């Protein structure tokens, strides 16, 4: 602690340079946090997927349906605990830009398969009795300022088209901050009544829960084998594999984000390393004085590293703090185009570690140079 005034005094030697370097750190860490949040949002489906859940889609593509009869057949496969099914509804609320995902659900089994999405029992009971009922995620409720009891019209161009009306009977919340709270659930029976006769017995995909995750490979194979060479062949995957494949449709987001991250890392390393190198070079004779009066080579290295570390920490904390403030604003601005952007503590911890690493790396070379400086050579420089 007794060296702190010395470190601070050296840091504030060139105030404009200090502000610019800290600023570049802050911007880079903000960008890092934002990219990490977006990457996290894309990967969240895979990350939070239940290990004991399988998703079954039509082998051709997810837009091709599967027969409703598969549900009971799959339930007979050993290891399968419960099966539910969904359809994509694809309705428009007032305007196309008001996008939010709507699913036709199987009320009987929905809560057993997706137990992390919680609906109060009394609201669920009302929903079960109301064929036009809907359960809506908390974020979508908040976004459109809806409340329970509201009547919501949705226009659709599929399923025979037309305007459908729903009563909001309940709100679901995720158990974890990462859980998607944007969905709109409507009843399978209501949906089935209104769609053309030819597609009344078709579902979009199935999700089933296993007794044990260890059975996943065996059950998946059993299902796909069972429907091989049928008119509706299946492709069964774990929920995480399904989510990962879904994200791949958007392109290699991971690669893009990692590439930007690497560029940010290297740029920051160069900017800070250059700043520290200039800073050390400017006070070569002072470092000579420090050594002459008894400061060790390691102490000199410590001073240089401490300075770069302080810059990194202050800049890093500023950037991450900015991200904490900005992410909720960005989430709102994105209007549900991406799942909930959440700046989880692990991103903040990783960001701070990243800042510390850059701080140490950028101070290391100038610090080693200062450490190896010969006193008599240093003192000659004025």
């Amino acid at each position, binding site marked *: 602690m007794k060296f702190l005034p010395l470190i601070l005094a050296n840091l504030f030697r060139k105030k404009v340079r200090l502000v610019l370097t800290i600023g570049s750190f802050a911007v880079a860490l903000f960008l890092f946090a934002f990219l990490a949040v977006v990457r996290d949002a894309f990967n969240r489906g895979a990350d939070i997927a239940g290990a004991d859940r399988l998703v079954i889609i039509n082998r051709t593509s997810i837009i091709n349906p599967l027969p409703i009869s598969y549900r009971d057949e799959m339930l007979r496969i050993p290891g399968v605990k419960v099966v539910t099914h969904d359809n994509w509804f694809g309705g428009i609320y007032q305007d196309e830009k008001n996008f939010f995902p709507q699913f036709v659900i199987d009320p009987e089994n929905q809560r057993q398969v997706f137990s992390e999405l919680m609906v109060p029992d009394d609201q669920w009971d009302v929903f079960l009795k109301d064929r036009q009922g809907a359960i809506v995620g908390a974020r979508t409720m908040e976004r459109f300022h809806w409340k329970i009891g509201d009547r919501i019209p949705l226009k659709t161009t599929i399923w025979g088209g037309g305007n459908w009306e729903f009563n909001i009977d309940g709100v679901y919340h995720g158990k974890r901050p990462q859980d998607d709270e944007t969905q709109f659930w409507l009843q399978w029976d209501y949906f089935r009544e209104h769609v053309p006769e030819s597609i009344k017995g078709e579902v979009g995909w199935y999700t089933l829960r296993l007794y044990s995750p260890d059975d996943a490979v065996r059950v998946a194979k059993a299902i796909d084998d069972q429907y091989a060479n049928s008119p509706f062949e299946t492709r069964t995957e774990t929920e995480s594999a399904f989510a990962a494949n879904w994200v791949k449709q958007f392109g290699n987001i991971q690669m893009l984000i990692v590439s930007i991250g690497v560029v940010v890392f290297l740029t920051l390393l160069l900017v800070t390393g250059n700043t520290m190198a200039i800073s050390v070079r400017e006070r070569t004779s002072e470092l000579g004085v420090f050594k002459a009066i008894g400061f060790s080579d390691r102490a000199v290295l410590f001073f240089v590293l401490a300075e770069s570390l302080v810059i990194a920490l202050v800049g890093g904390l500023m950037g991450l703090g900015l991200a904490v403030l900005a992410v909720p604003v960005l989430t709102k601005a994105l209007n549900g185009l991406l799942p909930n952007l959440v700046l989880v503590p692990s991103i903040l911890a990783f960001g701070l570690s990243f800042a510390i690493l850059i701080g140490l790396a950028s101070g290391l070379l100038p610090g080693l140079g200062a450490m190896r400086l010969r006193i008599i050579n240093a*003192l000659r420089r004025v």
Partner: protein
Amino acid sequence: MVQVDGKANGNSLIQVRELDKKYRRGNEEIDVLQGLNLDVNKGEFVAFMGPSGSGKTTLLNLLGGLDVPSRGSITVAGDEITHMSGHKLTEWRARHVGFIFQMYNLIPVLTAYQNVELPLLLTSLSKSQRRTHVETALGVVNLADRMHHYPRQLSGGQEQRVAIARAIVADPTFLLCDEPTGDLDRKSADEVMALIERLVREYGKTVMMVTHDSLVAQRADTTLHLEKGVLVEAGQPRQRVSAGEMA
């Protein structure tokens, strides 16, 4: 009594024996110091004079453990410094040597107080003990009222007095002054020299000083002349110098 014949009885504070220093410039080897002997007792004030390139500053650097000789030995208060490791030498410098440079070499972003406090940061003294030492040192150089000024807010003479306070604050065994008045006007130079004399007379400090200025050198107890790395002449403004075997 300062001796340069290498025949002192061994009780002197600083003993230099057969000191050589060579530098290599390309293929050429330059002898800066050649077989130099020197004995300085505690409380003595020695001035080294000589033309540029004669090896004055090199000798001072070697005495202060800032450089290593090519041959020979330097012993200070019983410690032979010529074979110390870099780490030991650094510790030794902190305990035994006070440096005063021509260009003052104060740290511009630190106040006079903080500059003087620097050597004490290497000790185990508490903050209040450090404060007492710093105030005392600044009092000795008569700058107690400038302790919160930055170097840029001080005159050249005042800066050098702060540098002297920094050199004495940890109570080193001896002081090494490299042209301490070289960048000062006559009046400031007189003030600085009066201060250095006072450190010798009142506080019993041992001082070795390099200077080009004969007026300044006259204030030392002994003036030794270095020419092309060899002690060729000994002046004795105040004391006799034994120079029986000058290199």
